[in-house]
């Protein structure tokens, strides 16, 4: 079976800086894959290429068997994206915005379900600009999932959330994987990776330094210890 997300020998440079330098990893449907790595390790560049927001210099990036660059509207409908900066129009109200985004998909709306699960109704009348960081995170997550994606890229989905909201988000992410989606979560939280992920990808200096099931990557120690031993030079910078 081919993977839902496949990255092979991917390379992307910005001038003299090799942001992604021969990375290879994959993510399966029905699994949560956590991508960890220090700032500047190339995670964002790699994920942006998979989202169709950037182009690789060489190598292969495939999402659902398709090159994401210039992919069709139907392909984009199968891929949900939660951006780090949210990307939410500042003057929109959350539910109206989600209703609008849902109208771009053929699938029936799931705004009500997401609003209930992520408790969006409590601030439904507030425009995005006036929401707290955590509230915006939840709206951005709902925006990524509103089209029932087959693949979801979630950039730090629980950053800035209180413990209750974090549990809700983890439950939701898990249920997305349980319904069959391939969920790729970029995170700096070892707790998040350990509690949520089926598979781990650790990125350092533009390359994948470890990937596989959590237990295999942790190799008998904690994920945190393993992470620092693998990315020590970056962590120490």
């Amino acid at each position, binding site marked *: 079976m081919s993977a839902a997300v496949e990255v092979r020998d991917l390379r992307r440079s910005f001038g003299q800086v090799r942001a992604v330098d021969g990375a290879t990893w994959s993510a399966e449907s029905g699994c949560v894959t956590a991508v960890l790595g220090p700032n500047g390790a190339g995670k964002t560049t790699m994920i942006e290429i998979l989202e169709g927001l950037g182009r690789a210099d060489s190598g292969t990036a495939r999402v659902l068997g398709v090159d994401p660059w210039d992919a069709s*509207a139907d392909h984009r409908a*199968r891929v949900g994206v939660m951006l780090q900066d949210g990307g939410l129009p500042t003057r929109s109200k959350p539910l109206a915005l989600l209703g609008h985004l849902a109208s*771009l998909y053929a699938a029936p709306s799931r705004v009500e379900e997401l609003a209930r699960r992520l408790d969006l109704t409590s601030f439904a009348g507030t425009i995005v600009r006036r929401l707290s960081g955590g509230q915006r995170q939840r709206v951005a997550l709902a925006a990524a999932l509103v*089209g029932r994606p087959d693949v979801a890229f979630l950039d730090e989905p629980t950053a800035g959330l209180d413990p209750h909201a974090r549990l809700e988000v983890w439950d939701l992410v898990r249920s997305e994987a349980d319904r069959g989606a391939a969920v790729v979560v970029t995170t700096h939280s070892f707790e998040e990776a350990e509690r949520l992920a089926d598979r781990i990808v650790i990125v350092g200096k533009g390359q994948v330094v470890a990937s596989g099931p959590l237990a295999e990557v942790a190799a008998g120690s904690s994920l945190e210890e393993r992470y620092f031993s693998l990315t020590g030079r970056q962590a120490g910078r």
Partner: protein
Amino acid sequence: MTGQPGSSAGSVTEVGGAAPPAARIRAQAGHEVRTLLANGEQLLVAVVLPAMALLGLALAHSPSLGTGRRIDVATPGVLALAVISTAFTGQAIATGFDRRYGVLRLLGVTPLGRSGLLVARLVAVLVVEALQVLLLGGLGLVLGWEPRATGIPIALLVGVLGTATFVSLALLLAGTLRAEGVLAVANLLWVVMLGLGVVLPTERLPHALGVVARLTPGGALGDALRGALEHATLHWAGLGVLLVWLVLGAAGAVRWFRWSD
């Protein structure tokens, strides 16, 4: 349940895919229009200030607008100002800040996509302009404006060309400068163009200034709309100038527009 990846291998989405292209663009254009109409500052620049300019020019005796009836000269100029407000100033600022906040990136990865977003924005601009024409044209008629009926199709052609020109210039500005820079420059240019042949005919300006004004997109649009609605004539020079700015703006936007800040 585990879904099979790949388009031919099936999907976890039972009723999936994108909405049809026309539905996507209609939805986004409607969203953009509602956002524009809910924006007080934008309404001020798009309707209130042009309406005040129209009232002032129609009711006052100076500055001189030339030989024609004041209201017949003033209304086309104010319609030109309305086009510039929506297609240039409003679009540049909205796009500049949407770029800053990642909205362009987010919409680019939805089924709408980048090209759908551009088309929807253009449709939204045309819809808002139609509302402006109804309101400001209606005000002009109340004040005694008598446009030449045979000039109306020409004015529509000029209006569409002017819109395309100013949207391309707005995208060039919004896609290359930081959001604060876009805000400052777009507002500044609105004020500068206001005095450079948009509301006042370029021939009423001092000679050297008139020559410059005729080469600006604002002056060209103002003269071409006055030519159409006051005299039912095609103002070729104005159309030519608009076309040159359209080519420059579109080529610059294609070359330099950046989707993220």
